């Protein structure tokens, strides 16, 4: 290559700041007159709020205001696809982590003290925690049109004819766990009103421009009045796509005309951001004696939790990637995103394409064992190449380096790839 800097490894442009501790994360910002916000969250996964009394907290010296749903001037909700996550719960909670209110006080200690004085009473509602249960007619309905938020079908060829051609068939169920992005820097933001009267927030986010849209919508102001400045971001992995502190801090700063800082502790961080979808995956795959895949049937059910976030896109991605990087002529996949009263799930590194490998890569090994083939061999014989057609009928007209990755990895383990092909 004739390039000079592309392909090299110069020091990170933000590197010197980061190794010397100078890089600014939102929690590192201290503004004159700054006050502190503390969120109070639900105690129940599904309940009516029958009483919300903030008077004791507001009476505590040093408390400036307690913000609740009544204080949201614009749309009381946010979300990457559909704004169904309440800024503050309005009479009802759908998940245990729903924000009830935000206490703003002169110091973090006072805000925390006051948060303990918020008096909330609930009337519990029936809840459902397993997406397979939630799909049943008898399950408590979390949405008017049922709990199934999304269903995608993939239909290619004829799976029954495909299985009839198979010499071996493997059938197996799998379940992935709910996991957390666990980035090192807990959520934090500092909002202030600048000299122009514009609302400015310094925050670690994955998408400042969408945050601006959602902040403006919730605050009922025009987008040019909102400025989102991305500080150094302490890891994200999908966990900073849905917003956390942004609207709360901006609302408080707009009303109080003071800089407002919100910093989550680790426990609140776990509660506030999305999780990876646990998926139930039932697979059936057939292959011929020479290791060629002929049919795949899969049902994938993802737990969307209480709010939509990216669930349709994630279960779509799961379906599209359900076959693995292998050519299979006959495919039938049903993929569902289902609401429950669990914490909401959303983006995390891999975004729905991360769960199916647990199933399809186990099955490749299971088929190989039955056929007395090496794991490399069965993969090699079915691997996508340039020009291959995927289960959705897409022709891979781009660079397809799958086989090279197989060869390179296998060689480093000392496998005799020429024999194994």
């Amino acid at each position: 290559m004739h390039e000079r800097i592309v392909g090299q490894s110069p020091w990170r442009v933000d590197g010197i700041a980061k190794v010397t501790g100078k890089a600014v994360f939102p929690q590192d910002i201290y503004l004159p007159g700054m006050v502190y916000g503390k969120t109070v969250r639900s105690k129940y996964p599904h309940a009516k709020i029958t009483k919300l009394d903030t008077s004791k907290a507001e009476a505590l010296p040093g408390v400036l205001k307690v913000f609740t749903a009544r204080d949201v001037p614009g749309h009381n909700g946010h979300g990457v696809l559909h704004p169904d996550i309440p800024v503050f719960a309005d009479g009802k909670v759908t998940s245990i982590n729903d924000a009830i209110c935000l206490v703003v006080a002169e110091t973090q200690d006072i805000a925390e003290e006051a948060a303990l004085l918020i008096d909330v009473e609930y009337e519990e509602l029936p809840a459902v925690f397993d997406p397979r249960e939630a799909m049943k007619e008898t399950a408590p309905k979390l949405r008017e049109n049922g709990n199934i938020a999304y269903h995608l079908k993939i239909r290619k060829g004829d799976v029954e004819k495909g299985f009839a051609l198979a010499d071996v068939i493997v059938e197996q169920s799998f379940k992935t766990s709910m996991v957390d992005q666990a980035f090192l820097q807990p959520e934090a933001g500092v909002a202030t009103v600048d000299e122009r009267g514009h609302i400015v927030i310094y925050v670690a986010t994955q998408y400042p421009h969408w945050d601006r849209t959602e902040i403006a919508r919730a605050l009922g102001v025009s987008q040019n009045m909102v400025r989102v400045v991305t500080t150094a971001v302490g890891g994200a992995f999908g966990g900073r796509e849905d917003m956390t502190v942004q609207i709360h801090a901006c609302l408080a700063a707009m009303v109080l005309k003071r800089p407002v800082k919100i910093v989550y502790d680790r426990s609140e961080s776990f509660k506030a951001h999305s999780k990876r979808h646990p998926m139930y995956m039932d697979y059936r795959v057939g292959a011929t004696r020479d290791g060629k895949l002929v049919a795949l049937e899969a049902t994938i059910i993802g737990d969307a939790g209480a709010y939509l976030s990216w669930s349709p896109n994630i279960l779509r991605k799961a379906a599209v990637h359900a076959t693995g990087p292998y050519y299979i002529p006959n495919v039938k996949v049903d993929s569902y995103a289902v609401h429950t009263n669990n914490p909401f799930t959303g983006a995390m590194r891999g975004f729905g394409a991360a769960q199916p490998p647990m199933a399809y890569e186990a099955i490749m090994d299971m088929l190989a064992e039955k056929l007395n083939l090496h794991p490399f061999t069965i993969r090699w014989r079915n691997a996508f190449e340039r020009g291959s057609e995927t289960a959705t009928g897409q022709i891979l007209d781009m660079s397809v380096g799958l086989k090279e990755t197989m060869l390179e990895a296998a060689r480093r383990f000392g496998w005799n790839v020429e024999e194994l092909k």
Partner: protein
Amino acid sequence: MEMKKLSLTVNGKLIEREVPTNIRLLDFLRDYLHLTGTKEGCGEGECGACTVLLDGKPVNSCLVMAHSAHGREVITIEGIGTPDKLHPIQEAFLEAGAVQCGYCTPGMVLAAYALLKENPNPTREEIKVAISGNLCRCTGYNKIVDAVELAARKEGK
């Protein structure tokens, strides 16, 4: 609020302040001295982002009461090197690609600094033990270990 006089050395400078009795060393460094290179990642001594050297030894400043550091010597990341004059460990972190989001980096650098002071020629395994109290979610640690090895070589020269 109960206040007490706290006197300690931070990055070689004697500091004397009246501060509340209920704050942690981490809070003192960040909120009072604005030495914000010391990060809070978990507040329970599990992640090491708040690592500082207390009398030369790495500790989690989120688990040390500020007044416990009275009369002692504290070194934070700001005391290791500056953008104009990087410490060889800091240079090595940049050269080896040991930095991604950077939130664990100050703690990692301090853990490495303490290790190399005691053991200028550590094995990879010894490096891993020395940074085992510092969680990193971005790098998978491999390049951090590379960086500490590189720093040992640089300093050894």
